């Protein structure tokens, strides 16, 4: 008994240390964003809003924020639509070449970003769509559609397969059954997917950096600032980015975990 208690404590401390490791950069970034020191270290100097005021008054930051919001919301909509269509096809139909079909959809996240970035840059230059805001949207949709597909597919796993067929038997067309049975059932997963894909797009820097041209997104801007030298403004922008994407990921997870029963009772 005593031994297993010691072991339990050891394992808890161990998990705690891993959490410290994973979360300390996020927490330090937030702390330093309110610290007056030019080079962030301990002991902390005085509390300040200075870095936030600097970025608030910086029109470049506003421009980048605007681009980021446009890119991530467009990406979220396109990726979720594609992901939904694909998840539904996989759920409902068996067809030839389904294996390659699913591979085609799910492979992008396994390709290193830098390779996708180069490939997209070259391809977009070739077909003459380089350096536009929509180039980033297209690239991000390719990268995030698999996440959308996975989230919605897992949700469809929970549906009673006879539900859709019952709607048909009651005289609903396939389109009507989609609208009144499948879509409402998938609503939590769709919200979840919108948030998650938006978060991934909002944070993505490699592909955006390559294909964005002059339309910098926030992460691309951070990268350019960081390459220069240590600038505490990054902590303020970073805190804003952390809060935005963490909120999106948390909402995504909450909707993802919504129990099937609650939704089907609607």
């Amino acid at each position, binding site marked *: 008994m005593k031994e297993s208690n010691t072991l339990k404590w050891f394992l808890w401390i161990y998990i705690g240390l891993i959490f410290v490791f994973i979360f300390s950069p996020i927490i330090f970034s937030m702390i330093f964003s309110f610290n007056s020191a030019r*080079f*962030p270290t301990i002991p902390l100097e005085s509390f300040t809003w200075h870095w936030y005021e600097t970025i608030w008054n910086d029109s470049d930051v506003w421009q980048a924020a605007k681009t980021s919001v446009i890119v991530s919301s467009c990406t979220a909509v396109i990726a979720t639509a*594609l992901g939904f269509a694909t998840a539904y096809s996989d759920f409902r139909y068996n067809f030839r070449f389904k294996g390659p079909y699913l591979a085609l959809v799910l492979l992008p996240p396994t390709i*290193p970003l830098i*390779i996708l970035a180069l490939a997209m840059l070259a391809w977009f230059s070739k077909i003459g769509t380089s350096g536009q805001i929509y180039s980033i949207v297209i690239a991000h949709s390719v990268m995030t559609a698999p996440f959308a597909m996975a989230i919605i597919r897992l949700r469809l796993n929970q549906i009673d397969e006879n539900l859709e*067929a019952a709607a048909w038997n009651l005289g609903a067309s396939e389109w009507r059954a989609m609208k009144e049975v499948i879509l409402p059932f998938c609503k939590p997963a769709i919200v979840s997917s919108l948030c998650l894909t938006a978060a991934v797009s909002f944070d993505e820097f490699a592909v955006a950096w390559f294909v964005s041209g002059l339309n910098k997104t926030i992460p691309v801007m951070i990268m350019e600032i960081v390459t220069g030298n240590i600038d505490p403004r990054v902590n303020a922008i970073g805190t804003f980015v952390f809060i935005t994407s963490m909120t999106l990921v948390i909402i995504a997870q909450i909707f993802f975990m919504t129990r099937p029963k609650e939704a089907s009772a609607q």
Partner: protein
Amino acid sequence: MNTQKKSTQKKRRFNLYAMVWRTPIIVWQLLFFVGPLLFMIAMSFFLVKNYRMIEAFEMKNWIKMFSKNYFWDSYYLTFGLASLSTIIATVIAFPASFALAFKVSDNVRRWVIFLLIIPFFTSYLVRIFSWYVILAESGVINAMLSYVGLGPYTMLNTMFGTLVGYMTLCLPLVVILQTFSLANVDKNLIQAAKNLGCSPIKTIYSVIIPLAKTGLIVAALFCFILSFGDFVSPYYLGGSKPPTLPILIIDTTKSGQQWPRAAVVAVVMMATLITIAFAALALAYKKRASR
């Protein structure tokens, strides 16, 4: 059952409804995923003259890159760092995943995974910048160590720095995947091993690890892919001397305008990753030798 029957009945005729859902992703991925990758492979045979890319089919870029020592230095460095990262992440993650799979309630496990998913999708770049500040010569860690009379240690621009970055990237994912695979191990078999007098340590490596093998290898594979392709950690924390392959791609593309040579590096990376992935998956799904 019902749905499947329906789809086979309709198979002969063109089914508009089915196609509306099935086709968009095919078109989209062919245009913007397969297209770019194939074009990149083709591009590795193009030529650059007067800063302009000319479509051609020449081996020049390949010969050029393969004959450079710096390319091979980068290759071995990147491969070595990614392997090291995979081993370290697997070893560090295992006790935590073990505890999460066997020693806590389902509820606690769900919460811990909930918390681990957040950083995985959150601003890797900013987290690395934060590490840059924390690990610096006068940064947080050295400041703390100086209170107890140690240091300062140089952590930036070292392999240690790069690995800290890789762990930031991979550790949450590896813990999550390992936990899933360990939690799926049949608890009865563990109990059986215990009843038959198997020591806890022996149970772990001769019962639990073999049973969870597939998931453990997949977790390691993801870690390798992520580390192999990451340029942020080796650049900002590792000092980029010598550059890793992803940094080489950036340098060649951004400053040199040598897209075809960057494409050579990218194709070599892809080939390496595909080989590793197949090897890993073969190992993961290999049946244990029959006795």
